């Protein structure tokens, strides 16, 4: 990047300015082809089979290999992908018009038949882990070579964005038939890159797919994902030039990385929502005043400032500002310990109460939980912290329903229906106490059956209002997505999912 441009970048503080700048930078410099991007990721891919897999850390590996029917932009709005357009002639029919001239890595043509094969596979419980995302699909009809018609059991507006995720990742039907169980280790998709080498525990190498349908794309010759679980090690690897890109930068290191001239550090909003999950079947959490007290006793601004150094946002609902389903009119809970105590007294607990809270056992999680513990302790809510590794914590809290609370992050889903249903529906997995507010369930069902974005938005805004009225949710904050990279990395754009997508990324010659 030229000197003046860099100076401008450094000066830019507002997000808008940054966006404008990246546009002008893009105009100033045409993308160059070639080079290998080395990106450090926290966790290893579990399988390259998008239908079988279920781990949230797989996506960074999957996106480059598998093109999706629908793409999302940085704010999670649906954009055309392998499906060039879609329409709903009636609420129970979805017609997808497919892109022409697309090939899978093995030369198999992508067409309506391939889509039917993929959706059938994604619905097959013997193979798929995500059949539940497609429950509303009755059958898939091949209209012609490049058109499919989905008949739905019930209207389902969440389908489109579900197609930006695993459900929309297209695998090569011939490869699946040929490889069987081995597909997950030698995947064949239609994405910009094909999997070249996977050294478990160490790195995954993707190489440019020469026959990609878009001329000139992709820009990079290869992407190498290095698996580096320790956050500080990732930072060291970037600073010593061993990798070009790291995700999940520790908040305390962000300012330092931003100050380095050879690096660029980016902060952007995400759906990563830190909250306290409650098991409302445990007394006294079934009482609304108790949950109100818990909300009023939290000084969220201070938590945001101290725990993640202000790199995030205090929110009134699980959604950040700028997200389409957000309710900007709703105010976050105020910090009012006196009122919290009054609420506790109203619930018949003037001396407070005790409860346990699960958390992950690493220092950053312990730190947050200790700060929450202290704030609740100040109004008489005594919290017993139970650090547990994730498998044990999820098992004991969500499935075993043994404990009262858990301090975890909701990672966010492509469609808001997935989030609100999981957390606020009485049957949701992440609502272990089965707290039921009929009005919320009506609203989310209605939203799911509404295709017009404007109408859906209004319904989710109402969901957020009722959730707050009923004190169903104890949110802490939404954490920003923090990524850092060498200044040679160009064209990278953050997204609301906080899962890096390397589409359009190119490397400037050194």
């Amino acid at each position, binding site marked *: 990047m030229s000197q003046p441009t860099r100076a401008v970048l450094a000066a830019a503080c507002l997000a808008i300015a940054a966006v404008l700048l990246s546009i002008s930078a893009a105009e100033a410099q045409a993308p160059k082809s070639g080079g290998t991007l080395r990106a450090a990721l926290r966790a*290893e891919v579990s399988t390259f089979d998008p239908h079988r897999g279920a781990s949230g850390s797989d996506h960074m590996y999957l996106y480059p290999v598998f093109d999706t029917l629908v793409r999302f932009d940085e704010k999670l709005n649906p954009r055309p992908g392998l499906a060039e357009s879609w329409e709903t002639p009636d609420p129970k029919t979805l017609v997808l018009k497919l892109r022409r001239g697309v090939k899978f890595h093995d030369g198999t043509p992508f067409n309506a038949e391939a889509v039917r094969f993929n959706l059938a596979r994604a619905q097959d419980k013997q193979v798929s882990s995500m059949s539940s995302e497609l429950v509303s699909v009755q059958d898939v009809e091949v209209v012609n070579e490049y058109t499919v018609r989905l008949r739905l059991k019930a209207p389902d507006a969440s389908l489109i964005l579900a197609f930006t995720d695993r459900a929309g990742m297209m695998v090569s039907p011939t490869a699946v038939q040929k490889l069987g169980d081995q597909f997950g280790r030698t995947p064949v998709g239609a994405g910009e890159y094909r999997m070249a080498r996977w050294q478990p525990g160490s790195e995954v190498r993707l190489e440019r797919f020469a026959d990609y349908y878009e001329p000139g794309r992709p820009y990079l010759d290869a992407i190498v994902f290095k698996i580096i679980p*320790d956050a500080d090690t990732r930072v060291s690897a970037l600073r010593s030039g061993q990798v070009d890109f790291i995700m999940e930068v520790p908040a305390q290191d962000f300012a330092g990385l931003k100050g380095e001239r050879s690096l660029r550090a980016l902060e952007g909003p995400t759906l990563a929502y830190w909250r306290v999950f409650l098991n409302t079947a445990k007394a006294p959490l079934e009482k609304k005043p108790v949950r109100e007290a818990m909300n009023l006793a939290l000084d969220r601004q201070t938590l945001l400032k101290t725990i993640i150094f202000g790199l995030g946002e205090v929110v009134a609902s699980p959604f950040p500002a700028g997200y389409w389903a957000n309710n900007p009119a709703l105010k976050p809970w105020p910090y009012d310990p006196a009122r919290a105590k009054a609420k506790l007294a109203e619930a018949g607990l003037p001396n407070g109460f005790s409860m346990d809270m699960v958390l992950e056992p690493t220092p950053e999680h312990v730190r947050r939980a200790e700060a929450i513990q202290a704030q609740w302790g100040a109004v008489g809510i005594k919290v017993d912290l139970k650090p547990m590794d*994730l498998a044990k914590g999820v098992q004991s809290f969500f499935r075993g329903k043994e404990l009262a609370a858990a301090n975890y992050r909701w990672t966010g889903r492509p469609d808001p229906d997935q989030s609100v249903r999981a957390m606020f529906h009485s049957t949701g*997995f992440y609502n272990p106490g089965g707290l039921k507010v009929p009005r919320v369930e009506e609203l989310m069902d209605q939203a799911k059956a509404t295709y017009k974005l404007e109408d859906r938005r209004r319904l989710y805004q109402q969901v957020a209002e009722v959730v707050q009225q009923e004190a169903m949710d104890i949110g802490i904050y939404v954490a920003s997505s923090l990524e850092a990279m060498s200044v040679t990395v160009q064209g990278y754009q953050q997204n609301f999912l906080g899962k890096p997508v390397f589409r359009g990324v190119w490397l400037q010659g050194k």
Partner: protein
Amino acid sequence: MGRFLRRRLLAVVPLLLLVTSMVFSLILLLPGDPAVALIGMEDASEEKLAAIRERMGLNRPLVVQYASWLGRVARGNLGASLRTGQPVTEAIRERAPITLGLALAATAFGLVVGVPLAVLAARRRGGLMDAAASGLAAFGVAVPNFWLGSMLVLVLALHLRWLPATGYVSPFDSAGDALRHLLLPTLTLGASAVAEVTRQLRSSLGETLAADFVKTARAKGLAEGRVVAKHALRPALIPVVTVAGLTVSRLVSNTVVVESIFALPGLGRLNLESVLNRDFPMLQGAVLVTVLAVIVVNLLSDLLYGLIDPRIRYG
């Protein structure tokens, strides 16, 4: 000696059974199964979990799983990872050399630095050299692994840029690069090895130097250097061999922290990840190999006793 070896090798079988059932019992004790570990906080549902459990073969009783696992192992098949489907033997083939190489390098470093240090220290008890060696040894024992590792990274890799901060390079790809990548982890792990060797040898050398047969040798007018080399060092080496053996095996099974800091895909991280992922076949396989490596090292150190001190019989 042949009989001794045969007996020790035969004893390995019940040992491995003991160890794998230990791992198995640990799995029993750990709540949360691989399906839960896989999904974590990523949009789980009972339906999804059930589908994954079915595919992983987790719906059979654990004892049945263990029995079928043992049966397969007897036929030389360690199974495949529940998470990635990678054959366990393949994972071990890739990862074991890294950990073993690291442990051997660190122990070698410990011997190369520790033995001369101890000899210098023991020759004049209470002298300046003794104080320096003891101080260094105490530091090596006392310094936390990850603290030393991250300090080394900070200074040697990030500030001076002499060595790479992290990562692993296979010696088959580039021998020089592999060595450079191994240097910092070796120093980090080797610090404690130096300390252990120095302390143990200094202490046992002190004893043998004070022993009657050494005094006799001295009285005969032998030069001090010869006394140390010919008479005192030999018996004093027994504890050193013990310590070296212990160090190798301890390092083999305890490289987790160093492997995390330096992003080395070794057995330590495989063990750790398998516990966190509840990846039963992978954990069994990794522990099995770790244990086998340790047994071999111990056997070698027992055999070395006999070479150093012929008075020891293999009873």
